[in-house]
């Protein structure tokens, strides 16, 4: 099993209907600056490649970048941090989504029950509270609503700290998109972690897709550079 790059992961889920934060890829720091200006500051800059699954642990992302100069510096540092085993890499520039609520959603293949969709409360305390629930894919909208209702922290989905309630229909869209993606047997797992709730809308700001086989190179690069669903 292999992970694919965040850019390719974003394209995969966005094509299925998941709302992801604005993003673009760039081969070098100068193009990263251009991309950042198009997206609008602040942005996040990440090192992006198929073999890079855990950016945080390796310090391969810079968050809340406010200027062209900082984008350039971040781009240089990140590309220098690449290791030979990372293979082909590029820079990923994403919009910074701002919201107080984080959710997590995903797809996993269970040896007993096959493809399962998960929804849970995200953020740094996610694993402590483990407020997550599953459904078997494929599932319909009613079952997706039922999945939302399984979370213990229902108050978190209502109006919260001056922000509107989470748009349950939009969250159901995301769940159903993950369910649709389960049709692809090559797709092993998907993580939307976190989904940040912005003005009630759940937006995936980090996406990791794991496949059985690495698709032939080129397929996703093309898609990624054109892949701004917003």
């Amino acid at each position, binding site marked *: *099993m292999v992970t694919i790059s965040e850019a390719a992961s974003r394209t995969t889920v966005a094509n299925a209907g998941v709302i992801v934060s604005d993003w673009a890829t760039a081969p070098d720091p100068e193009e990263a600056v251009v991309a950042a200006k198009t997206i609008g500051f602040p942005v996040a800059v990440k090192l992006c490649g198929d073999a890079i699954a855990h950016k945080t642990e390796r310090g391969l992302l810079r968050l809340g970048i406010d200027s062209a100069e900082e984008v350039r510096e971040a781009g240089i540092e990140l590309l220098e941090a690449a290791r030979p085993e990372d293979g082909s890499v590029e820079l990923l520039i994403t919009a910074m989504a701002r919201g107080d609520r984080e959710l997590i959603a995903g797809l996993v293949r*269970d040896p*007993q*029950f096959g493809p399962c969709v998960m929804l*849970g409360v995200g953020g740094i305390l996610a694993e402590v509270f483990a407020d997550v629930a599953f459904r*078997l894919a494929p599932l319909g909208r009613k079952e997706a609503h039922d999945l939302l209702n*399984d979370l213990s922290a229902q108050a978190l989905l209502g109006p919260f700290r001056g922000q509107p309630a989470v748009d349950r229909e939009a969250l159901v869209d995301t769940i159903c998109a993950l369910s649709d993606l389960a049709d692809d047997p090559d797709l092993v*797992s998907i993580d939307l972690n976190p989904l940040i709730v912005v003005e009630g809308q759940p937006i995936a700001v980090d996406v990791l897709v794991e496949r059985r086989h690495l698709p032939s190179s080129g397929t996703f690069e093309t898609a990624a550079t054109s892949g701004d669903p917003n």
Partner: protein
Amino acid sequence: MARDLTPLFEPQGVVVTGVSSHPGKFGFVTLHNLLSCGYTGNVFAVGREEGTILDRPVLPSIDALPDSAAELLVVCTPASANEEIVRTAATKGVRAVFVAAGGYSETGETGAATEARLVALANELDLILAGPNGQGVTSPPSGLCAQIVAPYPPRGRIGVASQSGNFVSAFLNYASQTGIGISRSVSAGNAAATGLADYLEWFADDPETDVGLCYVEGLHDGRDFFERVQAITPRMPVVVVKGGRTSGGQRAAASHTGSLASDDRIFDGMARQAGMSRAPSIEAAFDLAATFATQPLPAGNQVVVLTTAGGWGVVAADAVTTHPSLELAPLPKDLLTAIDSMLPPRWSRNNPVDLAGGETRDTIPELLDLVAGHHSVDAIIQLGLGIQGNTAALTRGGPFYPDHGLRRIVEFHENQENRYATAAVEASTTHDKPVLVASELAVARPDNPMVAAVRASGRLCYPSADRAVVALGQATRYASWRRDLA
């Protein structure tokens, strides 16, 4: 199309192999149970000893079984002998085999190979194969107790299928204790050829069974189980207890979703999606199955708590309020006015409806009917009954009975308790709404006339308000799920 398990649960004649005169051996116990619980069909014993056991002639081998005299074969002989026995039995008209004997896949690779041969043989001969390594079958509608253990449960509407024989016994013990009976029970054993889904499918079509109750530890094919149960639950509620909650599988660490995907969480989501009602414990599972078997399905989530006095109502109201599937119904104005006219002004004038000791002879039956009949009420939990019966018991056993007018008051108290229990059932039946009576006396004093009368009415007297609320909450959730399907 469900596999027809009629020959297993309603056999025309039963034959047991491995019968010896040692009353501690499984063969003897099975024969004893078959002859002791009311089964009216032919019962044959096969064993090595000559003469009779339990007044039955012992057949020297299965070859001596008359043709078409027994449909069910209960196998208590060792694994090595059983393929030959099964093959011969099939020629004699046997259609179902329960293999109580062990020595199969539970023992390792050799046993697994033996089991595989047995399954292949059963398929070849078109036999129903239950077990191996199971405790047996009971089927009170046909008087059948074909098991190596006790008890034999009272007849009722709950169909039990379990991957643990001990939990079959546990459910049957609860059935005996509460009087909420069993339609069929089966210990699936290794479930080599017939699994939980097969039993549940047959229960769903069985006119004797209203609810399936199962204990699951592991599944051969989880997806198949899910799909088949999902097809059952729209017409029959299925209660499930899952063992092995904590044995999380090791999964690929690349995915965060993967690390959160414990077996238990996925099972939980699967159960909800399939419309199964998952219970957290064996006793909660039985409470819930008994509720499905004896109460109407609630049409909504609005609950009224009725209590004669005390903190019972407060605690029950807390439990209802915090249950995600239930709401404590706001007392409608017309109902409040009506109750005002029945009681002195000190009653709670709220839900919980606390009579505060203001009731007279007819208040409780009238109130039950009044509240159950109101369109904004979906279910009632009745608490605080049994007090008069308790007083009567102390008085009856005391040194002054029956003088000093005690006989008359004791009879009055006992009659009243009977009336309350009857009124609860009548209100429930008349208005087609659940009315759950809860009291610790169910366990503490099962001889209390209220408890006895609830039992005689065929309903469960819940041992606590909390247990009643949990069962009602799950029944409400299931009913809502089923309504949404329509």
